[in-house]
């Protein structure tokens, strides 16, 4: 146990991807604000046909939900400011926590359009509060004068990363066992029905693909196989890359064929948490070497501490 504690406190090996993920997510959330801006009266303010509910979270904080709805423009600007601060790493964990709270309130103000990606993102944002994601792409790093504080920060960060990985594995596992329990998945015909749904007809090929019984069989069983095996095999170096590539392919195909781009994007981005700084930066250096874009052989420095 002590060995594990020491290992988790000594070094935070995921700082590069955590920082990159922070930037991705901030841009992702800004994009959401921009594209839903024209629909804010419908979705958040309750001024149109959509009947909104009270936010449990706001009521717990003794804030009247209708007060927030009536002042939604102000609230939305506040949300945007917090995201921008988060994007640049200003305010570090306090900003991350504030973002999590506001993100949760936004979800409760409009729960009807949420999907699995939004659901997962809420938890990732919570875990990101504990993770030091400010070593890269940030106006400043988290610096502690006291080495014990550094150790605690590393410990929390490593624990946060582990929580993200475990949560992702739990999601796949539950999705997998639910599927096995459903007749159409068990009998290998489920993707015929998903491809035939009008609401999710992402391409004009969906119907043709659905007519191919062999493709339907393979895609149905592959989906179950990936979801069930991922939580167990992703932890081993020998199988990790294969599983992650398969998961990314699965999410890409869903995003294209079923028009669930945002949903799948979150799941694809989360895969990166399985790679340490060393692994990511080695790949990046290889890419730079091959593209020969880097002048004077300047390379990314692989952190050792």
């Amino acid at each position, binding site marked *: 146990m002590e060995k594990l504690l020491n290992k988790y406190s000594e070094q935070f090996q995921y700082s590069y991807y955590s920082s990159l993920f922070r930037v991705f997510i901030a841009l992702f959330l800004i994009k959401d604000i921009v594209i839903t801006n024209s629909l804010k009266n419908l979705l958040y303010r309750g001024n149109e046909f959509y009947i909104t509910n009270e936010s449990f979270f706001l009521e717990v904080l003794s804030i009247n939900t209708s007060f927030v709805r009536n002042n939604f423009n102000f609230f939305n600007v506040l949300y945007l400011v917090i995201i921008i601060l988060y994007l640049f790493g200003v305010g570090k964990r306090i900003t991350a926590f504030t973002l999590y709270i506001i993100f949760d309130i936004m979800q409760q103000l409009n729960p009807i359009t949420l999907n699995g990606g939004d659901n997962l993102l809420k938890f990732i944002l919570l875990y990101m509060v504990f993770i030091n994601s400010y070593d890269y792409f940030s106006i400043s790093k988290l610096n502690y004068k006291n080495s014990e504080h550094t150790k605690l920060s590393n410990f929390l960060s490593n624990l946060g990363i582990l929580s993200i990985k475990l*949560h992702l594995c739990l999601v796949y596992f539950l*999705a997998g066992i639910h599927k096995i329990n459903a007749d159409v998945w068990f009998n290998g015909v489920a993707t015929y029905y998903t491809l035939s749904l009008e609401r999710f007809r992402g391409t004009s090929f969906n119907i043709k693909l659905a007519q191919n019984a062999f493709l339907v069989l393979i895609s149905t069983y592959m989906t179950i196989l990936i979801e069930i095996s991922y939580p167990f095999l992703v932890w081993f170096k020998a199988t990790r890359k294969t599983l992650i590539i398969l998961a990314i392919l699965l999410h890409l195909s869903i995003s294209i064929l079923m028009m669930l781009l945002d949903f799948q994007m979150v799941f694809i981005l989360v895969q990166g948490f399985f790679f340490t700084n060393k692994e990511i930066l080695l790949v990046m250096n290889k890419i730079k070497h091959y593209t020969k874009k880097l002048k004077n052989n300047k390379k990314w420095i692989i952190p050792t501490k």
Partner: protein
Amino acid sequence: MTIIFVSPKNYLNISLLEYSDLYNSFFYQKWAFFAPPPKTNERLYYIFENKNNIKDIQIFEVIEPITKAKSEKNPFNTEEDLLDYVLSNSINNIRETIVNTNEFIIYQEQKLDKKFTKSEKEKFYDNEIDNLSRFKTLKNYSRNVAIKNNIDIRKYNVKFTISLIDIVPFSERKNTNYKHKIQNLYVSKSFNLR
């Protein structure tokens, strides 16, 4: 905690049911992902009936045009996508309420050892559905439909119908003469928009 409350129904999470509401208020999550996938496509019909002329009935279906536009404009389909989510999730909410109310009626019939009449059953359904915010959402949407189709809301009453059209079963996929089964899931009472 998460594992307990997000697992499929089992002894442990059923025995902790009273705490699940509290947990879900903060950390709601559902990971069934199309298990099972729907085997039907939805239709939502708004039926406008002229108050003074019983022969003047105008019917508009709203789901199919939205899903078509959503596909055509993909990936620049935010408006259609969100509208589709609002309407379809409202329909699903009513659908779930009907299933739950049906189970409740069966349970009550067994418990009281009596059969409810059709009108008694309808009362149960109305009590549950009429108070749903999603029902009110669909009811309110009729105003948008009226405006879009130049219906004078002073002259018409409106009701809406939710129908489910089955997807051709996998075993029948080559059958070009397959006749779709259409099920009327819900028909609202007629209401005035003014």
